[in-house]
Structure formats: structure tokens, C-alpha cells
């Protein structure tokens, strides 16, 4: 479990990016953190893996205060994929990149080989294994960064803006991947602006604005609330917008995606849907 108690974070230049944040994320949960640019999302998740230490308050991972352990120890437990992949890619080839953390953590050679192969296939980048990460497209680099973290199988998986640079099919792959990992018991924490992606994943949402948490709850409760969303510079999913415009026809106002929409429309007169 990740537990954050009344945390403040002040950057060296004096800017207070977190202003009293408390939250709990249970083991095995799937959570997204959303909010406007500068809300403090990246700052918050960097506290989870000990990259940053709170200026005030406590962050605990599985009962251990992040103050009391090294980043290296935490890194093994809490895998972190940066918002900007260039912050984490530095090896000469994609394959080495994905193997790097595994080597550092002292895994055996044959295990490393297996894990690297698995991760490269999972992220659809096996064809680039000999290429330099820096010659890849933006979306491909992002997937290399993700593969390098998945490879060492951390209990907690933190993804800062994983859908950046991904086309719809890659996003679909990613969605199935995180849902599957979550089903297998991994705690998944995703920072994202991608409202449509969240509408499809339906995780618990933690909504941040100006260094504070302004709302929390299941996607079905948070995403239909226009006023809450606009406070955090978010825009309601398209399908939800559409249904709220025709709620007078007796349709529900918390429909999140096209599949739910289909179900809801089945009952509407004039729609003879198979």
C-alpha cells in the first residue's frame, strides 16, 4: 500500500508544488491521477518511488517510510516510467536499454534474456532491438522506456503520461496490457490527461488541481461531472457529453464509452439494435 499523509513539497527555488496531500492507494488497485498542467501530478508520483522526499508529511510504501530507504531499494519495488522518455534512455541499443535495470539488479543471464525478450514483444518493439533508442520515433521511445521497467517486474507500476505519442492501436495494446498486469495483482498508477483512455480503462480517479487533491472516486462518478473536470482543465469524454445532451430522452448521464452507449441506446425507441 502507498500512504501519503499531509504531504507538502517545496522545490529548491521555493515553489510549493504540493500543498497538503493525503491519499491511500491499496495494493492491487488501478488508479489514475489527473489534473491541469502544473497541478503537481509528476511531483506526487516522484514521491512514491523516493525520487523526491516530502518537505513536510510522510510517504509510506508497504509500511516503510520513503525517508528510511534508498532510491535503489524502492526502485525495484516501484517501477517508474518518466513523462519524457529521454530522461531514462541512455544505452546504445534498445535491447541493452531493456536489460540495463535487470543487470543492475543482479539477475542471472538466462533470466535477463528471457525477460528482455518478453518485454520487447509485449511492447511491439522487438524489431528495433538492435537500433539506438535515439533514432526511434517519439512513441516508440516511450514504449522502450516502458519495456525497460516492465522487464524487472516491479510490484507497483507508475506510468507518467504513457499514451503520449501513441496511436489508437498502441493505446489499445497499452490498455489491455495494464488491465492484464493489474489483474495479475500489480498496482498500476497512471498519470494522464487522456480522458478517453481513462473512460475506457475505468480506474479510480484522483483529481488534482493547484497542488491539492480536489476529488477522488470511480471513473463512472468523476468523469460525468463537468464542473469538477473544468476545475482541473479536463474535458468530459465525448460519449458522456453526447448522452448528457440527450438525457431528456430518458438516457443515463454517466455513459463513458461507445460500448456502454450501445447498451444504453438499445432500449431507446427507434433503435432496433441487434
Amino acid at each position: 500500500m502507498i500512504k501519503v499523509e499531509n504531504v507538502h513539497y517545496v522545490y529548491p527555488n521555493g515553489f510549493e508544488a504540493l500543498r497538503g496531500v493525503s491519499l491511500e492507494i491499496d495494493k492491487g488497485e488501478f488508479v489514475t491521477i489527473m489534473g491541469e498542467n502544473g497541478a503537481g501530478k509528476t511531483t506526487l508520483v516522484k514521491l512514491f518511488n523516493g525520487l523526491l522526499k516530502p518537505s513536510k508529511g510522510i510517504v509510506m510504501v508497504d509500511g516503510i517510510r520513503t525517508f528510511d530507504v534508498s532510491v535503489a531499494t524502492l526502485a525495484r519495488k516501484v517501477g517508474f516510467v518518466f513523462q519524457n522518455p529521454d530522461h531514462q534512455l541512455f544505452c546504445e541499443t534498445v535491447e541493452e536499454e531493456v536489460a540495463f535495470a535487470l543487470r543492475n539488479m543482479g539477475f542471472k543471464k538466462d533470466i535477463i534474456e528471457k525477460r528482455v525478450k518478453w518485454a520487447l514483444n509485449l511492447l511491439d518493439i522487438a524489431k528495433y532491438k538492435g537500433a539506438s533508442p535515439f533514432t526511434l520515433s517519439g512513441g516508440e521511445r516511450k514504449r522502450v522506456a516502458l519495456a525497460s521497467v516492465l522487464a524487472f517486474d516491479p510490484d507497483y507500476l507508475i506510468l507518467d503520461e504513457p499514451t503520449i505519442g501513441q496511436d489508437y492501436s498502441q493505446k489499445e495494446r497499452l490498455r489491455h496490457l495494464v488491465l492484464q498486469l493489474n489483474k495479475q495483482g500489480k498496482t498500476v498508477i497512471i498519470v494522464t490527461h487522456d480522458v478517453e483512455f481513462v473512460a475506457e480503462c475505468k480506474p479510480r480517479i484522483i483529481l488534482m488541481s493547484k497542488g491539492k487533491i480536489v476529488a477522488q472516486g470511480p471513473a463512472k462518478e468523476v468523469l460525468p461531472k463537468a464542473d469538477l473536470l473544468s476545475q482541473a482543465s479536463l474535458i468530459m469524454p465525448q460519449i458522456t457529453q453526447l448522452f448528457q445532451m440527450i438525457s431528456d430522452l430518458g438516457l443515463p448521464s454517466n455513459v463513458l464509452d461507445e460500448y456502454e452507449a450501445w447498451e444504453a441506446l438499445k432500449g431507446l425507441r427507434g433503435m432496433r439494435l441487434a
Partner: protein
Amino acid sequence: MSHVKVKHLSYSYGEGEGKVLKDISLEIDKGEFVLLTGPSGCGKTTLCRCFNGLIPHFYGGKMDGEVSVAGLRVSEHPIHEMATVVGFVFQNPENQLFALTVERDVAFGLENLGLPKDEISKRVTWALKIVGMEEFRFAAPFELSGGQQQRVAIASVLAMQPEVIVLDEPTSFLDPATALNIFQILKRLNDELHMTIILVEHRLELASAYINRIVLMNEGSILLDGDPRSILSQEESRLLGIGVPKVVRLFRMLRAGGIPFEHYPLTPSEGAMAIRRLVKGYDQG
């Protein structure tokens, strides 16, 4: 006359490497607002690099065919000359920001244009204001959040008010309200100053209301080119996994389910009207 002209363009990053662009021909008129999209890795960024001369002048490689922008043949003009007519917003904002303050970053290109000091100051204020970053004028770019950095990168290009502006996934780090705001600003510059805009974007649900043409690429070639509604309703765009807006997806399902309607709606309000029409048609027998 076309403002951007690409004729039989093929490109590979190195001798012996595969072709990343394959015989692309494309003409864009002055004042068009074109959305360039396609699967990750299909060559969008590579094509954009040909518009401002990064290809071939910086990346080298092997280039065949011809590209000209605002009357300048890209292969014959160095990057700094191209920069006076083509503004370029990079996919990764950090590749664009290098100064110690936001103000310096936005002013940099303007100084290179040789504009007078007070004009520069005015433009910097204007550009920072439209991206909502005035209060960060004296902040250090490396101390900003990802989205804030991207806003500065956009401001520094808008400030130049170039004839052609190329934006490579410029909203990837932005929150939706800000992304929408950027599209609206681009639309305004497009209407008022007749800026030609080439936008690479996956978030079609936000952008499709502002653009007037979609160019869809796949594996280094142009697959479809036309007006947004017709492109988005074609099967290829679904098969290629393009970010077709959710409303279009829903109506595709409805059509497959035997529900008749004339045009594909692109936005939630068009979708709502379409459903009302269906219900009304039924009520009136």
C-alpha cells in the same frame, strides 16, 4: 499557387537503411489547416523535418524528390533561412528550450529575425499570454512541468508569426482544456493571418472541429487525403488504428447495427442531433 509542395519525395536516414518516406507527393495551399496523422513510426516527424530543412541539412541521409515551402526549395536553403518562413514546434518540448528564462526562449527567434526591441517585447507578451504562461516569464524552463514547457515551446514559435507553422504532436503534454485552447488559437491565426498550418496530432476528438483537411500516412506513404468527415468515416482509418473520435466510433457501430443516417457526426452535439432525428423519425412513424 501551393504554399507547400512535395514532389516524389523519398527519404532514408542512412545509406543502406530502409526508406522512411516513399514517393510522397503533396500540395498544400496558403491558408489551409491540415492534420497529418497515422500510426506511430509511420514517418510523420520525418516528413515534418523535410518542411524546415532539418532534412537534409541536419540529418543528412538520402533524399530524392523535391520539397518547397513558401517558394523556397528546401534543399537549397539552409535551416536558418527556412526558419524565417516555417515555424516548427518539436514533438519533445525539451529539444526546443535552451535559454535560462522563458522570456529569453521566446525572444530568441525574434532577435534572429532582427526585430526592434519593443516589438520583440510586445510579441513575447502576446505569445505568453495566449498560451497562459505570462506569470512564468522569468522562470527557468527546466523548472517547469512537462505541459508548461510545451506551452513555452509553442509560444516561441507563435511569436515569430511565420507563414507556415508545423506542429509535431504539440499538445501531447497538455491538459485537454489547454490543448483545445491551442487549437482555437491556431484556427484564429489561420483565419486572420492566413497562416498555413500543418498539425501532427493523435487527439482527433479535440482537433477535428478546427481542421479542413486530413492527410493519413502509413508506412512512409500517403494513404488517404481529404476532408475530415470523409476520411474519418472510411474503413482504412479504423483499420489503421487512427484516433477516430468516439462519436464517429459509436455511429460506425450503429450503422453496422442497421441504423440508417446520412452523414457521420464528428462532435458530441452533432451526435446528439443525429440521435434526436432518429427518435423523431420513429415517433412520426
